[in-house]
């Protein structure tokens, strides 16, 4: 319990402090320090997992520990990258200020303070979401992630980012409002004076009124599914991911979508315990297939490479839902895939940020010969292509193989065939675009220098995704097996 509180409290406190700090240097040190502290706390949880009562509101059960670890790793990498980003941004900003002396910067708080503060509060809210085992608290934390991340998307203060932020705020708030209704439906299903913790509800599983539980499941799935970006509820996702600063896009895609997925997983866990596992599995399978199909449709011929990555996130969220929906051995595949997607997508969004800085355009057509202009980022783009499309030796290859093998072993030939065809379409669509961007005659003259802070973090993610694809340490497989049991999965 203490550890859970620290995991939320440390970044939350640091976030509030970051708003107050005036000088840039201590604020950036605070960002890195809090990220390191969070990672350290997570590591201590791996060393000795704190026990928790089943009715606990906050607990690091196997699922929570797995997703908190992914979040922590990605946040640490992204905050190191953010140092370079903020330095670059501050340089261009002070340049602009000279041109425009009557910029009303007195009116607004220092943007960088808001940025660092919101990043840390965002981390705190996501950690709280992942660890909540009480459906009310889960809702509160989920809405907090939306509110903490909206100012991050608006960091550029351009008309386009404003539009994206408005859509994000409104669509996600309405979606999550429906999830609140779903939470009340759960209370109705449990009857008078119910305790809304997962442990208490699951124990009384069979006594839950199935009609109300089904209605609650639909509302929660639609609500948190909006946040997770499952098609056809993904309307906000491509806009927000393409207009946010790249480091924020990496966090939205690699960590926020996972946090929303954990909300759905809690619901699924409850449905399994209440004997409605097949009902929620079918729903997840349907959402998964639709997401895959919609993403494949929009990836082909996409003209904006950040939107392309956003649709790829829709695809991978679909894969997570599909794996969970298939059940059996695919459950472990789905859980493992969450890490594969987060690492690969973090790598790609950070690389996309470098390309955006060098080429000053998000259009695919404007980026040519990245390997010549920015050799490090060009190479990382190609590595990322293989990491995200599930080529060996990356972790996504292992997880996608697990899912398709489970589908075939289960005799679901249609699902397996659709899955393979859609993945092939996505691969061809992405490869055609990325190869054109990386190779060919450069659209910019000369080489652009890149700082180490720009390419070391994505490289670290790439290495991690590759190593885990070849070798999964024992404690990790044990954890996944334990987590999968809650969803009716088999190893």
């Amino acid at each position, binding site marked *: 319990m203490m550890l859970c509180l620290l995991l939320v409290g440390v970044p939350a406190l640091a976030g509030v402090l970051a708003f107050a700090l005036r000088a840039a240097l201590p604020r950036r040190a605070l960002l890195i320090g809090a990220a390191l502290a969070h990672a350290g706390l997570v590591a201590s949880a791996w060393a000795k997992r704190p026990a928790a009562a089943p009715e606990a509101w906050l607990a690091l059960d196997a699922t929570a520990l797995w997703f908190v670890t992914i979040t922590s790793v990605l946040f640490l990498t992204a905050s190191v990258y953010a140092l370079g980003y903020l330095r670059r941004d501050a340089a261009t900003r002070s340049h602009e200020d000279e041109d425009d002396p009557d910029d009303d910067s007195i009116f607004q708080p220092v943007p960088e303070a808001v940025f660092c503060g919101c990043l840390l509060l965002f981390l705190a809210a996501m950690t709280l979401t992942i660890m909540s085992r009480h459906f009310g608290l889960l809702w509160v934390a989920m809405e907090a992630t939306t509110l903490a991340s909206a100012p991050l998307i608006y960091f550029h203060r351009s008309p386009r980012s404003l539009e994206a932020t408005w859509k994000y*705020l409104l669509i996600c708030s309405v979606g999550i*409002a429906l999830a609140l209704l779903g939470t009340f439906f759960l209370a109705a299903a449990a009857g008078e004076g119910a305790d809304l913790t997962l442990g208490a509800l699951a124990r009384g599983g069979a006594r839950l009124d199935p009609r109300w539980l089904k209605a609650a499941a639909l509302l929660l799935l639609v609500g948190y599914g909006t946040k997770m970006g499952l098609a056809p509820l993904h309307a906000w996702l491509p806009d927000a991911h393409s207009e946010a600063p790249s480091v924020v896009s990496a966090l939205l895609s690699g960590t926020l979508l996972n946090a929303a997925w954990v909300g759905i997983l809690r619901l699924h866990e409850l449905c399994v315990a209440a004997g409605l596992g097949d009902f929620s599995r079918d729903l997840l399978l349907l959402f998964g297939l639709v997401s895959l199909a919609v993403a494949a449709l929009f990836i082909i011929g996409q003209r904006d490479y950040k939107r392309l990555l956003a649709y790829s996130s829709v695809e991978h969220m679909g894969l997570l839902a599909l794996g969970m929906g298939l059940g059996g051995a695919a459950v472990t595949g789905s859980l493992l895939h969450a890490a594969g997607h987060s690492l690969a997508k973090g790598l790609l969004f950070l690389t996309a940020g470098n390309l955006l800085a060098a080429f000053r355009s998000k259009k695919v057509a404007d980026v040519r010969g990245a390997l010549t202009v920015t050799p490090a980022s060009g190479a990382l783009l190609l590595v990322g292509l293989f990491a995200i499309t599930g080529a060996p030796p990356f972790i996504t290859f292992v997880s996608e193989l697990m899912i398709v093998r489970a589908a075939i072993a289960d005799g679901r030939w249609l699902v397996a065939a659709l899955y393979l065809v859609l993945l092939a379409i996505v691969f061809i669509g992405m490869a055609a675009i990325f190869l054109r961007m990386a190779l060919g005659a450069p659209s910019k003259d000369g080489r652009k220098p890149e700082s180490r802070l720009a390419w070391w973090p994505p490289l670290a993610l790439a290495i991690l995704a590759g190593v885990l694809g070849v070798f999964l340490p024992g404690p990790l497989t044990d954890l996944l097996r334990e987590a999968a049991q809650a969803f009716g999965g088999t190893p």
Partner: protein
Amino acid sequence: MEALVHVLMVFLILANLRLLGGTRLNVCIVTVAAQGAVLGLLPLLLHPLSLTRHALTIALAAVVLKGGLFPWLLKRALRQAGVQREVAPYVGFTPSMFFGVLALGLGAALARKLPLPAPDASPLLVPVALATMLTGLFLIVARRQALMQVVGYLALENGIFAFGAVVMKEAPLLVEMGILLDIFVAVFVMGIMVFHISREFDHTDTERLSELKDWTP
């Protein structure tokens, strides 16, 4: 108490209709605030025997936030944005009122399908709560002014709150306060965004916020 609850329900229905028929943003903001404040008292009326400090705290917080702070925040955004009324909504005001009546019928039909486990509640409660939610959702999709969409969001929350008051007799204080805090911050952030939109574009018409899409040449 039963009669008071019924008066309250009628008030909620009238507030819904006024929101659907309102052109002046000012009026709609006040209406949704009054609806929220009155709803804050609902749990006290529904469970008059359990007037604990817990219940009173939450009722007080809800009334102050929804009846006082929200309209103040939204009116400030309204002044900054300099808009007065919803001029050309996607769905006209008369058809919108008609939808309000339809929503009530729909709410009643849905409530029959899903009977509450707690049968002692007023039979009007669930239909009215559902109709308020539908009104909120309708306002969000049928109005173009950003502030009207915020009003719609608040009406949606009001409806959900009314439903919650029926099924959750005693929710943990932490959760109830967390929910209120979240909605407060949401309105706060939305108010700031409306201000930025009006400053950046010189309007707050969301119809014209349409630059981001796929397949643009």
